[in-house]
């Protein structure tokens, strides 16, 4: 029985009904928990071990040192800029990908999503080849006094390159799930493509956009390989938090561990937010 053929039902009714009707859990093989527990421990133990290494007495001082706050500020700033740019460029990409059935679009999608599987260092090299001082576009820009490589702009570009595919695939998934029936209705009601896009499509896929933005921002925050290759590691200019952690690891392990913990906290918050969002979408 579906909600449609009953009387008026409220969203809360449905949720409660869903909670009450629970099936008995499907039995799992008796040995399955063993590798599962090993897998879980493999991830949790190192993180806990690192937390155990934190020198709590000097934690605040280490995290608030000028080098640390500069790196943290740069990380947050560039990640925010990246998320914004990825949304402006990636959302339209996702919409076009989800609407088109042409084969060349499939090829294009594979290319755009390539950074998902590409080692970030390779991404950094590719960016250098295009925008480096001797690069394809870089040489032209250099002649006009625009130097991109090894600037904060380069950090953002490296992050967009690596993290935008997360947003594109997340939003595209959300767009495909609902189909286009609401958009078709909107058209018969006289709404043009722009109005339909803004008032029907966007609200419909908002949960997908939010989780895409969170994933994208988290990936940008953790970006290391492409940034180091394309933007280098200049304090206050291109040295983001992950780069600072890597640098301090050799000089001052305590600082490295303390900063790493900051990144862990940020990651936990991100995962918490996304899983809340996902649950809201599923329910």
């Amino acid at each position, binding site marked *: 029985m579906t909600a449609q053929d*009953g009387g008026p039902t409220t969203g809360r009714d449905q949720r409660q009904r869903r909670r009450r009707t629970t099936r008995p859990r499907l039995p799992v093989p008796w040995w399955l928990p063993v590798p599962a527990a090993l897998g879980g421990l493999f991830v949790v133990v190192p993180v806990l071990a690192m937390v155990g290494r934190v020198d709590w007495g000097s934690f605040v001082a280490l995290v608030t040192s000028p080098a640390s706050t500069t790196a943290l500020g740069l990380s947050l700033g560039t990640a925010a800029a990246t998320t914004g740019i990825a949304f402006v460029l990636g959302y339209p990409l996702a919409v076009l990908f989800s609407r088109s059935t042409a084969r060349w679009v499939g090829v294009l999608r594979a290319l755009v999503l390539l950074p998902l599987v590409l080692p970030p260092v390779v991404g950094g090299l590719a960016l250098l080849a295009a925008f480096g001082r001797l690069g394809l576009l870089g040489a032209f820009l250099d002649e006009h006094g625009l130097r991109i490589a090894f600037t904060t702009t380069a950090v953002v570009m490296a992050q967009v390159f690596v993290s935008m595919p997360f947003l594109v695939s997340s939003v595209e998934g959300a767009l495909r799930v609902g189909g286009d029936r*609401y958009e078709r209705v909107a058209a*018969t*009601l*006289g*709404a043009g493509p722009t109005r339909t896009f803004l*008032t029907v499509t966007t609200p419909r896929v908002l949960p997908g956009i939010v989780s895409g933005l969170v994933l994208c921002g988290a990936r940008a925050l953790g970006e290391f390989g492409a940034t180091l290759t394309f933007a280098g590691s200049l304090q206050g200019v291109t040295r983001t938090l992950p780069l600072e952690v890597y640098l301090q690891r050799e000089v001052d392990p305590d600082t490295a561990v303390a900063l790493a913990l900051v990144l862990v906290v940020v990651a936990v918050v991100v995962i918490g937010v996304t899983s809340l969002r996902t649950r809201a979408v599923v329910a």
Partner: protein
Amino acid sequence: MTSPAAGLHARVVDPSRGVDVTVTVGPDECVALVGPNGAGKSTVVETVAGLLRGTDSTVHLDGRDLARLPAHRRRTGLVAQRADLFPHLSVTDNVAFGPRAAGAGGREARHRAATALALVGVAGLGDRAPATLSGGQAQRVAIARALATDPAVLLLDEPTSALDLDARAAVREALATARTGRPTLLVTHDPLEAVALADRVVVLQDGRVVEQGPVEAVLRHPRTPFAASFSGLALVRGTATAAGIALDGGGELASSTRTVPPGRPVVAALHPTAVRVGRDGTGPGRTVTALEPRDGLVRVRTADLVADVTVVTAAALGLAPGVTVRMTVAPDEVAVYEPAG
């Protein structure tokens, strides 16, 4: 095609689906489009709405050529099987969506939404969220939403087939209000709906119009097997005789409504419950080909004749595929007339 005038004139051509259908709907007429699944009904509706583009299709509405216009410039109101209310908008905002798209201000759009909601009898639901509505309420809101745009043509694609019987009556009432004053195309599987809403019936089969006429005439004297089953009748072919019809499958049925001179090919329409089945006696002899349960009765199929008998009768006669039976029908229940074409 004659020069386009008032009303809807559509020729829908879609070679990939084998559809070539011409439909004309008068300015204040409702035409019911019926036919088996895959006959092309939805193709016709979606082409008129502009949701499907066929290069060879032509759609004229009150003399306007719609074929080149995108869906949102056609002023077609569509109510489909599912209400598809925008889940993120309240009922009022759903209905105000069309007026807003047409450029009306917020206050004006809400006013028009309230008027449309009142027209279909759900004035009190404005503040509700679509997810809290019953199926019938949601469908009436969908009708109000289509009406609020004052569409030049109304397209109803099986508007009540997803609803339970109680909700259908209320929705049908709302549809009767909605269809007045504009050409309306109604796709339906429900003969009651055709009787309640439509003036004419167009029967589609395999992408072609196989029969059309006033609702009353098509339901009473169907000329195609689908039109017959649509109105619950069975159709048998034969040759006119002085008494009634000599069936192609052998035997003769008397008819009290015969106007066709003997010797002409004719069809006879009869209701399966009017057919009496016995193991011996008079009437055409037939071999049972299949038995199907049907609303508490048993439908007895033979090569041409069809009968509905009670379960008790079926058991008493020992009916089973392969059994030979005699089938008789009272002359009052047999309508004999000339087939289409």
